């Protein structure tokens, strides 16, 4: 079996998990969703085999094209969920995350994304910086994705509390104050990683092009994403705009990343020769 076949199996399991999650939503997260956890754990196993097989076959960290980067981002998010899910009270998080895992995975499976040549050889200099900058970007987006998941939970719980739905207290959801802190901390983690990734990228650009700056669309886009998240954090930190607005910001921020990540990559001569 190829690494892609393993990933397809994982995507199938993410899909089943997503369908199962619909039932968990309908039940109001009252039950400890062990079944969903094991579905995601099984998917994670296939996903890990896919990543390892590709990594060993190319003898490098498999994050050099859009397919690989996307697969790596989802893998990181699933791993984080599986760690949180060890605590039974946090296992319900899977019901919020499995639709994200499935949708992003389906995007990753589009054939045009799996460019086996990786980045443009003209700009490609082998070395740790290349793998590290890609891995850090992937981890940053994974943190933003989890932050969006926590934000979505905040919005669901806040809505239920506002409209006096029984689900607000019958469910296993944590208090909204905790969800807001989790959203905030994950966003902090994401922006720290993104800052590090941008600094490494600038250093890498200097090495390959003799300049710390490039007007490549993906470079510009990365700075735009950084600016959006920085703005959100300043909004919460200095302007007391926490709560619902902040949670919407986390969800919208990641939606923007999801919707524009592939497009800007395709427009980028550096990343997509």
């Amino acid at each position: 079996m190829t690494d892609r076949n393993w990933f397809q199996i994982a995507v199938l399991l993410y899909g089943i998990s997503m369908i199962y999650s619909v039932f968990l939503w309908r039940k109001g997260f009252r039950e400890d969703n062990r079944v969903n956890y094991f579905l995601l754990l099984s998917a994670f196993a296939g996903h890990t085999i896919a990543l390892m097989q590709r990594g060993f076959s190319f003898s490098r960290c498999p994050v050099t094209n859009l397919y690989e980067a996307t697969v790596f981002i989802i893998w990181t998010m699933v791993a984080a969920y599986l760690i949180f899910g060890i605590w039974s009270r946090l296992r319900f998080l899977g019901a919020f995350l499995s639709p994200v895992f499935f949708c992003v995975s389906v995007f990753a499976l589009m054939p045009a994304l799996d460019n086996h040549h990786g980045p443009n050889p003209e700009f490609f200099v082998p070395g740790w910086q290349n793998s590290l900058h890609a891995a850090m970007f992937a981890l940053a987006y994974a943190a933003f994705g989890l932050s969006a998941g926590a934000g979505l939970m905040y919005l669901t719980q806040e809505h239920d509390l506002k409209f006096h739905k029984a689900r607000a207290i019958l469910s296993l959801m944590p208090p909204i104050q905790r969800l807001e802190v989790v959203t905030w901390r994950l966003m902090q983690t994401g922006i720290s990683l993104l800052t590090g990734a941008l600094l490494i990228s600038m250093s890498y650009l200097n090495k390959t092009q003799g300049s710390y700056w490039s007007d490549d669309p993906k470079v510009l886009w990365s700075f735009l994403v950084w600016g959006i998240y920085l703005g959100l954090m300043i909004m919460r930190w200095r302007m007391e705009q926490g709560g619902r607005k902040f949670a919407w910001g986390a969800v919208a921020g990641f939606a923007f990343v999801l919707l524009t990540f592939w497009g800007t990559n395709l427009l980028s001569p550096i990343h997509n020769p």
Partner: protein
Amino acid sequence: MSVVVIGLNHHSSQVELRERFAFPEAVIPEALQQMRDAGLANEAVILSTCNRVELYVVTPQAEMESFKALKEFLKTHRQFEGELNEEVYALGEPQSLEHLFKVASGLDSMLLGETEILGQLKKAYDIALQSKQTGGRLNKIFQKAFNVAKYIRTHTNIQRGSVSVGSAAVELAEKIFETLSDRNVMVIGAGDTSEKTARSLMSRGAKSVIVSNRSYDRAEALAKELNGRAVHFDDWASEFANIDIVISSTSAPHYVLDRKKLAPLMALRHNRPLLLIDIAVPRDIEPEVNFMENVYLYNIDDLQAIAEDYLKQRREEIARCEVIIRDKIKELLNSGPPRQQSQDGRFGFGQESST
């Protein structure tokens, strides 16, 4: 020898009758000995609470005979001269065991799923044990009943949630705030329900309570009881900056708190979440404030609806608990020595019936 149960509870009788049959704790050892001396029981436990009086007996007699004899014993011991019909129920094995397990698990309680009964049952068993009125049979069955109650508590939702207004308010607060330990509570209007609600919040660790009432003396009295502080009714808004939970129950005919008044107070609080519990009728807080960001308003109907939902959820769990209980009884009966079969078809498997 079968285990039988005879008794009366809140389903079968009124409190006026139950109180006639209640056994004071001090007379239980003596009553147990009397049953034994009269040849009614080889082993026995008497459970006497405000909602039930039950005799759990390992009888040397046939079940039907023992029901009659135990009923007479009850009447004689409690000096009751009237007629007892539907008020008393008698169960033979295995329904007597099923009944015991249900009682231990709170399934037969007035407040479905409550846990106080388990403590009362343990105490009743302990009295019998100390009086040396239990043996291998009841020891095993009661221990199993305690284990089953624990299992049901941890594996089902029968004891989950709040079924009173006060505890529903606590649950709401716990769904909004990370912890209650650094939350400040304000009580506006010192009514009975607001006092109970404030007590529930304090018992779950709320940091402090401020009481405001039109009668300052009443505010001071309640504040003292709650280990809090009283403020004059005209000054409550000035304390608002540090408040996280407000319980309002004044008898004012108009809104005490409206959107116009709350908006600047929220700014003072840096838009931290605020839980408003309005248990006054007519209402004290304008419903519009619920549309403000970070403000969560619940009135008495909302809280009662939450309590009802929990009760509904508990009722939905009954069938699940009953399956567990039946499985555990099968396990228990299969593990013990062969049981003497009943000689009476009617009570052979302990159909619930009045004697």
